[in-house]
């Protein structure tokens, strides 16, 4: 799947694409319009008080009516409404989550539990969900507090050390939606993005099946050489490529890295060229991230490793 321009993807709570996001948007609308109306009313009263000829008013009635009864009624109604929205958004953890997302500094570890094969499916910074069906997401963190926020699909939910929070994603329409860590989590917080791709059920199943498969042995000798070079520099200390001996867990699973839309959690679009850039220059591209810039490869070797990774679709 090609994503031409990741930076222009929708990421707005004002453009809801799911029922929970719509509930939140509705609550927002009530607040914007309601507070706007009250502001206009108060300003009108102030102007009237200043401009109208002096006359006696019933001060006690205004204080009790406008200062006590009106705010109590409005705030009570809002409180009940917000409780109702909160209740509608909350998730009873009745069953196992479909997807587990773990916040890491500064990327998203994504695991699926409902692969028909039972095989582990792990990827990073990208979620596929089926359109028209709720999907439950378990949210955790391995380090500091992060917050999972895909504004078009749901409210933000914090990822707190030692806890598992839950969230339901229920896309009404197909599309790719950008999300962002919404809790400051360190130097590269701003580059901790993810993409949620909502596709029809059958496409979702096919995608999950592809992601569950191990990496195939490359047909091309150059790609095999790229794989061997990757193992030579011990990339497997941190990365897993299912189907090879690489089984590290510090960094993202790369089994199907070539199928993903971005690198470095939304930092770069994914291509052979940006893969090479990332391997050799990850510290200049995303300073402070856990991956060192790998400068031991010759130019040709770098291209072979990048080509191998790009071939992992």
């Amino acid at each position, binding site marked *: 799947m090609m994503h031409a321009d990741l930076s222009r993807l929708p990421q707005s709570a004002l453009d809801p694409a799911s029922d929970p996001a719509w509930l939140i948007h509705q609550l927002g609308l009530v607040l914007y319009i309601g507070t706007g109306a009250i502001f206009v009313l108060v300003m009108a009263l102030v102007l009237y008080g200043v401009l109208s000829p002096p006359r006696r008013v019933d001060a006690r009635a205004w204080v009790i009516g406008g200062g006590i009864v009106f705010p109590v009624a409005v705030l009570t109604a809002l409180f009940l409404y917000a409780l109702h929205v909160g209740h509608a958004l909350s998730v009873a953890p009745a069953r196992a989550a479909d997807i587990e997302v773990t916040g890491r500094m500064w990327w998203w570890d994504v695991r699926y539990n409902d692969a028909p094969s039972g095989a582990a499916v792990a990827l990073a910074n990208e979620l596929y969900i089926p359109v028209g069906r709720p999907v439950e997401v378990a949210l955790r963190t391995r380090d500091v507090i992060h917050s999972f926020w895909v504004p078009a699909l749901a409210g933000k939910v914090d990822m707190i050390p030692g806890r598992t929070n839950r969230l339901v994603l229920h896309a009404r329409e197909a599309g790719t939606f950008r999300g962002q860590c919404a809790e400051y989590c360190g130097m590269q917080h701003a580059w901790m993005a993810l993409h949620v791709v909502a596709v029809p059920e059958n496409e979702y199943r096919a995608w999950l099946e592809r992601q569950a498969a191990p990496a195939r042995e490359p047909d091309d000798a150059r790609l095999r050489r790229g794989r061997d070079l990757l193992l030579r520099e011990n990339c497997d200390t941190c990365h897993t490529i299912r189907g090879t001996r690489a089984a590290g867990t510090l960094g993202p699973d790369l089994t199907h890295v070539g199928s993903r839309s971005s690198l470095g959690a939304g930092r770069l679009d994914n291509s052979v060229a940006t893969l090479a850039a990332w391997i050799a220059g990850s510290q200049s*591209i995303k300073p402070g991230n856990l991956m060192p810039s790998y400068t031991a490869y010759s130019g040709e070797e770098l291209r072979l490793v990048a080509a191998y990774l790009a071939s992992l679709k």
Partner: protein
Amino acid sequence: MRFLALFVAVCAAGCSAPERNAAGDASAGRVAIERHQCGACHVIPDIVDARGDVGPPLADYGRRVYLAGKFPQDPALLERWIRDAPSLEPRTAMPRTDVTEREARDIAAYLRRLR
């Protein structure tokens, strides 16, 4: 009616992308450089986020005598380098890109203007 036809004719001659020609359009090149994220490897003036340290800085590329330190400057060669550097220098670290021919022409125009 004749006035309208004249207007259309003048517009067709004068309004259609005057900057675009065989030499490439530097401002389109700038857009292409950002889209292909050349800045992941290169420092390039006036390009958002172009601070890469993997390849050489392109700050005054228009004054470089040699392309990649070995080929005399030639527009066609630069365009080929941008799209498929390994075909010119098998030991380069710069991968083939998915830059189109048109984009390569525009990017080359942008780079030549850097002095």
